[in-house]
């Protein structure tokens, strides 16, 4: 089992959700995040002072899947979010999960994940 953590652009979430659904993946958790990377910084102006904001709004997507689904998730995300030449589209990290428990039933392991 793997935990896939993807840092994506907020506006791409709806499309990614749709893409994931095509692979029968519809369970996930998101949090609101801010990220700093190589993206072009946003300019902000306030009271005559202009300022570069490098911490930009991101969505942090967490999907726990059984191993055979990992590629599908990666494909779905990259398909939507890939824009040639545009920096700052985000990253995906794959982490190992040792155990997964469905809270409702106490059920464990690979069947509990979905």
């Amino acid at each position, binding site marked *: 089992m793997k935990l896939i953590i993807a840092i994506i652009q*907020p*506006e791409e*979430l*709806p*499309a990614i959700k*749709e893409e994931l659904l095509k692979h029968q993946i519809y369970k996930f958790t*998101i949090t*609101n995040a801010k990220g700093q990377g190589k993206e072009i910084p*946003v*300019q*902000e*102006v*306030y009271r005559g002072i*202009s300022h570069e904001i490098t911490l930009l*709004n991101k*969505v942090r997507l967490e999907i726990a899947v059984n191993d055979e689904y990992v590629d599908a998730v990666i494909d779905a995300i990259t398909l939507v979010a890939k824009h040639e030449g545009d920096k700052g589209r985000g990253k995906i990290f794959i982490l190992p999960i040792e155990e997964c428990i469905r809270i409702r039933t106490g059920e464990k392991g690979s069947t509990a994940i979905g």
Partner: protein
Amino acid sequence: MKYFKPIYIMALLTGGLVMADSSEAALFTVNNTWMLVSTILVFIMHLGFATLESGLTRAKNTVNILFKNVSIIAIGLLTYAICGFNLMYPGEFSLGGVFGFAGWGISVPQGAAGLVEYADGAYTYFTDFIFQAMFAATAATIVSGAVAERVKLGSFLIFSTLYVAFIYPIAGSWKWGAGWLDQIGFYDFAGSTLVHSVGGWAALVGAVVLGPRIGKYGRNGKGTIPIMGHSMPLATIGVFLLWFGWYGFNGGSVLSADPGPVSFVFVTTTLAAAAGVIGAMTLSWTISKKPDLSMVLNGSLAGLVGITAGADVISPMNAVIVGYIAGLLVVSSVMFFDRLKIDDPVGAVSVHLTCGIWGTLAVGIFSPEHQFLTQLIGVGAYGLFCFVSALGLFYGIKTAIGLRVSEQEELGGLDLGEHEMEAYAGFQIFTVE
């Protein structure tokens, strides 16, 4: 005894104030004071619009909406001083009841002429100007809500300036300026048509020309998706302030403090607003199964717009009916325009146009002195003129410099795109869905 600050110009101004007796002076003063209080009340309606519109749209476009509302009132007031006032009240028409112009700028009639004689001792020239000027900006503000969240700031400001400087006062002159519609007996007490529909038509045209916001009518035809406003408290503040200001809008339109008519107008205005709330509540609760605050808020405004044309000629009992029907209408109208895929984020078209038309026609129904047909002619004439003008302006601007922000800017929000600023710095706001 306290010391009085000397007011030099006062002597100059009041020099003309020689009246038959001082009781006339007293009546003049109270009439004028009420008109000024009404002016202030109409002023605060602009804060009402600003908060209502920003409350019913998303947090990422809030700075933009506030900016538009602050600008519009400034532009509206200044252009009204430059030409609007003299277009709306030309005195004489150069083009048979349709167009007249009394010259640029505001020109103070000297002495008593500008004061007591100006309006038969009801108010001064300055009072007249400032009261009417506050009305002017309203029409443009109505548009702002309907085109929110996707219109380019510069394009919108150009549209507003032209609309408020020329279209609104010319249209207004037909009735309030004693033009052709006034002559055939058309009636619109405080502006269901002259203010609200004039704004409403432009709002409709703007919403159509711009097209809906991204995601409103479903990706892949998934049906209509609600785009929730980001702050119901702000929206509620807006509605209460509008209702509050409406006492000046309607009450001041009596053009004096005459106790009978002003208090009568207060009663009809209040009951119509209350009935609008109940009308919208019953219908939206029935349809959606749940009581929808945003609809109920619109309901009170619907009642207010509805009674505005006939607040002085419709009885309190009938005012309840007019308001209640307006409340039903606004809910139906919002759903109707959604079905047509015309995206009006705050329901400006439904409140101001639909109910403005209803209110104008209601005068023909509930007031024996007025004719339904004449009212219909008025509604039609204004509709035609405003629709065509707004369409011309919007298309002209679209061709010249474009109307709509880029897709990326719309998704990221106009606050960052147009202003490089956030409305709620520090707050965590989810920009998905």
